[in-house]
């Protein structure tokens, strides 16, 4: 842990490309819209009445926003999937998945750090392996969300219905999966926001502003990995 009273030299390192930041914020905003409208579509908490003066098209409008946000979401996921393979070295899956000994050790280290078992923070240029693994799982969930969503939006388009029947069996099953997975995104939003803020206290790398600027701060003595 970095002591408060000790003077530390930081150096600024550029990590996140403009494409990744674009992905991050379009993904975040579309998730927010999708979750809010999706919860309404699932079980409308407020409804309208026949006697109302002018038409509201409440459900139709919110569904429209849901679908519009869904396209942004799918585009963002497509960008991230591209970057998993062709992004800079910190954006590639090889950097942050537990696929080698060093990364597995880092995963263990982050877990201990988050469980207050150690104060030793591992300074990494890119994602920590724990974060990276969770992000990767979320991308997979996002793909399933996109496929179930497309199936529910265009059940009569030949190739989509073929894909839907092959993967999910029926529309009801797709709807069920779509609903169950939306909880994953709610968990993720809660935990992601919390950990981003928590990290800013524990290990001041300026990762929150880094999500805008693309660069973070590492102590000057930390070697480039």
């Amino acid at each position, binding site marked *: 842990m970095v002591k408060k009273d000790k003077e530390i030299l930081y150096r600024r390192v550029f990590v996140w490309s403009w494409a990744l930041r674009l992905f991050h914020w379009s993904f975040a905003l579309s998730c927010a819209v999708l979750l809010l409208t999706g919860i309404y579509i*699932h*079980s*409308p908490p*407020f*409804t*309208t*009445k*026949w006697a109302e003066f002018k*038409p*509201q*098209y*409440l*459900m*139709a409008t919110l569904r429209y926003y849901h679908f519009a946000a869904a396209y942004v979401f799918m585009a963002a996921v497509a960008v991230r999937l591209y970057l998993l393979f062709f992004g800079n070295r910190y954006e590639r899956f090889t950097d942050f998945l537990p696929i080698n000994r060093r990364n597995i050790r880092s995963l263990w280290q982050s877990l201990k750090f*988050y469980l*207050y078992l150690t104060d030793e923070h591992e300074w990494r240029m890119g994602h920590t392996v724990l974060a990276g693994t969770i992000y990767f799982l979320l991308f997979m969930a996002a793909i399933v969300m996109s496929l179930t969503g497309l199936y*529910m939006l265009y*059940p*009569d388009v030949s190739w989509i*219905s*073929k894909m839907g*029947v092959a993967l999910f*069996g*029926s*529309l*009801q*099953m797709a*709807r*069920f999966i779509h*609903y*169950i997975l939306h*909880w994953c995104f*709610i*968990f993720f939003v*809660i*935990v992601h926001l*919390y950990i981003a803020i*928590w990290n800013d*206290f*524990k290990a001041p790398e300026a990762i929150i502003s880094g999500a805008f600027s693309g660069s973070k701060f590492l102590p000057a003595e930390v070697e480039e990995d």
Partner: protein
Amino acid sequence: MARIPPIRMGLSRRDFLKICTIATATMGLPVEMVDKVAAAVKSSERPPVIWLHFMECTGCTESLLRSSHPPLARLILELISLEYHETLMAGAGEQAEEALKEALKKYKGRYICVVEGAVSTKDGGIYCQIGGRPAIEILRTVGEKAGAVIAIGTCASFGGIQAAAPNPTGAVKVSQVLSRPVINIPGCPPNPYNFLSTVLYTLTFGHPPELDDLSRPKFAYGRRIHDQCPRRPHFDEGRFVESFGDPAHQQGYCLYKVGCKGPVTYSNCPVQRFCDVGAWPIGSGHPCIGCTEPSFWDRMSPFYEHLPKIYIPAGGGIRVEAEKAGRVAVGAAAAVVAAHATIGAAKKVLKSISGKEKDQEE
């Protein structure tokens, strides 16, 4: 229009043309085709049909016969030459078995095999036997030599209630037993017009109608109930029935919140309706239960809720409402986050206290 004389069994010409017109409309064909369909009914050789009953409730046959409005059943029975049908045939026992054997020999490769009900496969299929033979064996003998196989009803098409969990008899759908294409006419019960129109289509054009990915005729199961529902404007407006009998229900609002499965169910119910009296579930204020979809007993139930329950295979198996499970899990996540933050803060406070003590000692 060519003059068509009344056909046998007291079916009037008016009824005959009426049914042909409805069936033609069901197939999605223009009114000019009514003559051709009617001509096909009259001129074609009546196709022999062997109708098998397996694990089912005979509801499909009952809805087909519909004794209160008989013309349709009359036409169907006129149209086909029913060689074997346990509910309708006069013969019984040995006599009936003999009729089946004879029909198999006489019409080999030409007859239509209509199956009603699911087929038991567990323990050699002994849970459904007719004349001492397991249903699966009968289906194999009759089905493989048929000219065409039609599965009528959800049990035959997708397994139905017999194949619902825990499925003690190992019930399966017809297409899982036979290694040949099967036309599915699902529904619990299916609309008899969908069956009639499928047969008429085949007679008129000489080939079966276009099928969807679940082998259902597209003319009948090509569109979602939700997309043709007369209550759809209420859905788009956000006007919903909250509970049965409330003012919203009396006003005829959308049944989405009381578990209507219209958005995930393919059928022509809103257009075709039932029993020639224009009745159908949503029209009567009851949500669609999705009976034309695969494994609807497992996935469409609870019928008055949106989604099936989550099955957790712990202990004897627990069923939880998806919504409740999600809320509990999110609540737990929030609690964990709060606890985590508290521990962190507490640790910091403790450390600063002990740090001060150290400073004082020094």
